């Protein structure tokens, strides 16, 4: 099974239940497409009936104020706005995170090494090399979906999700990697741990990072 999502030829727009719409961008999973998604989100947030436009990974979810009888109006708006091709460029905040790879905080580090056909040291080196861009914030409050994972570390989600992993857990799955902002269930491979608070409901905005910001991982320690 290939771990990389197939690319669409055309935008795909589908109802996500009665009061939400999912827009999936055509083309590669890369920063150019993601910058277009951010621009599309800004545009869509101003449309009538749109409560919120939520960027995902080269896709966008619109939450509507009430169920539309049909979604044709939004299909046209989304296609037209996408075709304009605007990209949103963000002046990034850079966050450097110290990670303890492996051990109790990273129980799946060996699985990932085995799955990728690499040594643990190579996995850590490859994982700490890139500057990761925050593509989207979500899943749980303050969590950052990061783009930039090296293709050698792409792998499918775990078959059986874990009931709970602690806040600060570093994990990866598919083409993605990220650090949990609070304790919760996870279907990803957990490979390390950081000390960081990504979310504070008393702050506005409540999330520490925004789409376009940058995260760097530093190996504080590797427990092989």
């Amino acid at each position, binding site marked *: *099974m*290939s*771990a*990389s*999502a197939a690319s669409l030829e055309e935008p*795909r727009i*589908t*109802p*996500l*239940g*009665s*009061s*939400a719409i*999912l827009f*999936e961008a055509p083309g590669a*999973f890369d920063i150019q497409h993601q910058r277009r998604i951010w621009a599309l*989100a800004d545009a869509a947030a101003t449309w009538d009936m749109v*409560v*919120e*436009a*939520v*960027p*995902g*990974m*080269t*896709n966008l*979810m619109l*939450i509507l104020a*009430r*169920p*539309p*009888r*049909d*979604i044709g109006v939004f299909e046209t708006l989304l296609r037209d706005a996408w075709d304009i091709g605007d990209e949103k460029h963000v002046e990034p905040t850079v966050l450097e995170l110290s990670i303890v790879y492996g051990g109790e905080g990273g129980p799946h580090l060996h699985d990932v090494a085995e799955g990728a056909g690499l040594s643990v040291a190579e996995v850590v080196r490859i994982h700490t090399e890139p500057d990761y861009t925050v593509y*989207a*914030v*979500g*899943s*749980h*409050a*303050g969590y950052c*979906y990061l783009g930039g994972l090296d293709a050698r570390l792409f792998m*499918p*989600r775990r*078959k059986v*999700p874990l009931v709970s992993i602690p806040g600060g857990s570093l994990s990866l*799955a*598919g*083409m*993605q990697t990220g650090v949990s*902002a*609070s*304790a919760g269930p996870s*279907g990803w491979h957990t490979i390390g741990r950081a000390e960081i608070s990504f*979310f504070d*409901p*008393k702050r506005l*905005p*409540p*999330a520490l990072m925004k789409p376009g910001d940058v995260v760097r991982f530093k190996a504080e320690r590797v427990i092989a």
Partner: protein
Amino acid sequence: MIEILSTPSLVTIQDLGRSGFYRYGVCRSGAMDRLALAIGNLLLGNDRGAAGLEIPILPLRLRFNSDLNFSLTGADCGAMLGDRPLPPFWATRAKAEDVLTLNAPRSGCRVYLCVAGGIDVPEVLDSRSTQLRETFGGIEGRALAKGDRIAAVGNDVRLPHAGVGTVPPAVALAAAGDSTTAVRVIPAAEYADYDDASRAAFWSADWKVTVQSNRAGYRLEGPELALTRPRELRSHGVVPGVVQVPAGGQPIIQLADAATMGGYPKIGVVIDADLWRIAQARPGDALRFVECDTAGAADAHDETETYLAQLAADVGRQRRLATAWGVA
């Protein structure tokens, strides 16, 4: 003021949930059965989105420390105010020192207790709902415990002496099928990627609610749903109602406290107007999915709105009559 004398786990303060913070990863939260909460509030003359208690497991006992109008909606739990039995979907006035006992539900899964004006806790991110994972909202973001005291905002609405009630929504609103746990579903992006047998089974099977079901989601058990080819999706926004199918082939309905994004294939999405029916299904109960489209979902939404508007008008009329006759 209400004092909790004994409580099961996972009783939380909920309103209709948070809106507008999805892009920070904040899920909707709020009452699982938003219809029952809205009805409970309307019976009391509250805004329909005032905060109440969501009580998923019983029994529970509490004491009123002062006279207070309250309502019970949702599951029928053989409630007793002192030695007086209370019908479900009913609002009445408690006297100071009255003890309210909620017993094991005869039907349904979650009881909602609303109070005059709503429960008085601070709004966090525009809502009073308890966000259990991130521990904010409600009382310190946690479930209630024995000894907790809850204040009501209060209002000056007078109820008829005997109380005021309504026909439960399970009776008033047409179910989509012959079973009360039939829920309407709009096929989702990956629907066509399931094989013929799986799509047929999705609509025809009785899906058993497993014990691994909670405010985040209901895990169902039934025939294995198989894709014609493996899919690894790019993560995208997920709303309550999305029916995800992880690799095991057993569906999970995402609900009030679900993750705001996910990447599992989704076969369909339960329409908003039917989410309350899931909230009242218990482990061991069966759910059935009935195919629906956006027009059908809009109709269902309108039907619910009409029902609530009618209910608010009826209850208002009864209150005014009772006041005019001096029996309020």
